């Protein structure tokens, strides 16, 4: 008995260590792989953010990338020669989250009484409007050429140069965001969101201001989108409207659905699959997207609830670890 407890605990520690080691060892790979890893982390954060709206509150937002764009251009405006403003990165990160949230609230106020697909199409329209505005407001955004030569980001004087630097920054942000969202999900706010998703009218009947609840979901998710946009543009040191198309919004939604709606573990799996897949398919040359589309359809037809079962969520994983560690006597 004692021995098996020891074995199990060792097994757990080893597993966790291997995970940590794998995450820490990613930068040892060639830069190309590190960039892919960066990309995956960005999409995990975006999808976790959007999941608050889609997965928890049950509102389909097809224009999420607009908030990402707002964040990205916030950095471009405040850390480049465009207006000759050069604010520190971390300050802009906060401002980006703020402007994102503000955009979320501005969009949310008028449209949140719409239901289902009408809300979806209005958010889609909003996303397109933002993109077209960016594309055409030449004086402000340089239009399709975008804004180049953005400042190099620094954190407490340390410059962020390589994909590796950003990898660690993104890794930290991913953990922070996932942790925060996880606690939000378990809080009374998360429960109210789930109630909203299940039955909006009954939720209102319990004295809950559902418009405020939706607005909170929109604002929080838009803030995450905005902050991620800031990092993206600091990483690229270049922004242009073509990074913020409708297809990008769809990609984030796809990541959520294919992983398993409302499930953070599923989102990670979805992001890994959907970002790595096109890279792996490079060998297929022009058939790449064809295969990609087929894989999407086949995966969803075979696993309509997403790759990761709803029960296997972050809470489950944490409980498993707790159970293994704290009460080793039960089998």
């Amino acid at each position, binding site marked *: 008995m004692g021995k098996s407890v020891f074995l199990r605990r060792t097994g757990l520690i080893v597993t966790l260590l291997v995970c940590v080691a794998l995450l820490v060892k990613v930068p040892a790979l060639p830069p190309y792989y590190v960039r892919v890893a960066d990309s995956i982390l960005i999409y995990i954060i975006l999808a976790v953010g959007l999941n608050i709206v889609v997965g928890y509150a049950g509102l389909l937002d097809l224009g999420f990338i607009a908030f990402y764009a707002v964040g990205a251009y916030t950095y471009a405006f405040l850390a480049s020669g465009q207006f000759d403003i050069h604010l520190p990165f971390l300050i802009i990160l906060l401002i980006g989250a703020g402007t994102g949230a503000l955009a979320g609230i501005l969009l949310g106020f008028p449209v949140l009484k719409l239901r289902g697909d009408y809300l979806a199409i209005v958010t889609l329209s909003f996303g397109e409007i933002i993109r077209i505005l960016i594309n055409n407001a030449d004086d402000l955004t340089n239009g399709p050429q975008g804004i180049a030569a953005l400042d190099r980001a620094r954190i407490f004087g340390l410059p962020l140069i390589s994909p590796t630097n950003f990898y660690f920054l993104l890794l930290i942000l991913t953990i922070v965001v996932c942790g925060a969202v996880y606690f939000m999900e378990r809080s*009374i706010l998360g429960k109210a969101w789930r109630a909203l998703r299940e*039955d909006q009218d009954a939720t209102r009947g319990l004295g*809950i*201001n559902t418009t405020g609840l939706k607005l909170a979901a929109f604002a929080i998710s838009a803030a995450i989108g905005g902050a991620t946009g800031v990092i993206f543009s600091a990483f690229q040191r270049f922004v242009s409207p073509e990074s913020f198309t409708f297809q990008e919004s769809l990609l984030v939604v796809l990541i959520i659905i294919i992983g398993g709606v409302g499930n953070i573990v599923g989102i990670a799996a979805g992001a890994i699959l959907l970002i790595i897949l096109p890279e792996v398919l490079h060998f297929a040359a022009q058939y790449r997207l064809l295969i990609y589309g087929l894989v999407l359809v086949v995966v969803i037809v075979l696993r309509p609830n997403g790759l990761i079962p709803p029960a296997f969520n972050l809470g489950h994983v944490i409980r498993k670890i707790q159970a293994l560690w704290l009460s080793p006597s039960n089998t």
Partner: protein
Amino acid sequence: MALTLEHVSKRFGSLVAIKDLSLTFERGAIYSIIGPNGAGKSTVVNMVAGSYTVTSGVIRLDAHVVSSLAKHQIARLGISRTYQNLRLFDGMSVLENLEVCFFTDSLPGLFRRGGHRMTKVERLKRCHACLHDFNLADVAENLAGDLPYGRQKVLELARAFVTDAPVVLLDEPAAGLNHTETKEMARRIASLKRSDRAIILVEHDMDLVMSISDRVDVLNHGELLYSGSPDAVRRNEKVQEAYLGTAAELDIVRKLTEGRRTSGGIRAHAGVVRH
């Protein structure tokens, strides 16, 4: 101190569902609203709860004008309800179904008008106590959607009472329940009567209505036909006519139901007429 409807009317297009209805519901009693199908019973509940707006007239809870408020504000004032068709949050646990009732109380002061902020411990204590009172403690962690129908009905009842709302509207609490369950439901509702609370039922089951109500309001074609004690309602000719038609028609029904009557009173007649 009471819930009052003052000259309330409700029109749906050209259809007049409620015509100049005035009623007062004091705390400390159980009221039933009955009437044939289409009499406007559910419309009253939906107007009080804010699901429908009133076409004219005023609904007040004490000094507050309820009829001009949004649905969630009405609920915050202390009018809670159940639904004709169950509207539980099926994908959430039984406990969570109650917890969300305290969402607004649990918010930081900035988002909450008045009162103190409820802590998680207080919230769970209230919910667990309620689950205990409603015999649901053993299924606290089960998904609401997985409960048998009878217990789902009880859970919805618990959800309406957990916040200690001064006015509770019960829209057909016995619908779909079998005889034993209905009896149990009647006993439960009767036990929930308190001096600081008005319970208003809309119900078809006459045994239930007659056994627990302090006052029965009979609606017909959107108007108040009669209002009085269960016994008075039972004896009232106008009520019998509204339910069963004229005396001549009533004779036919009597003949038809002869020998099939299991329990006396209106229930058997009403049953025949409805089905």
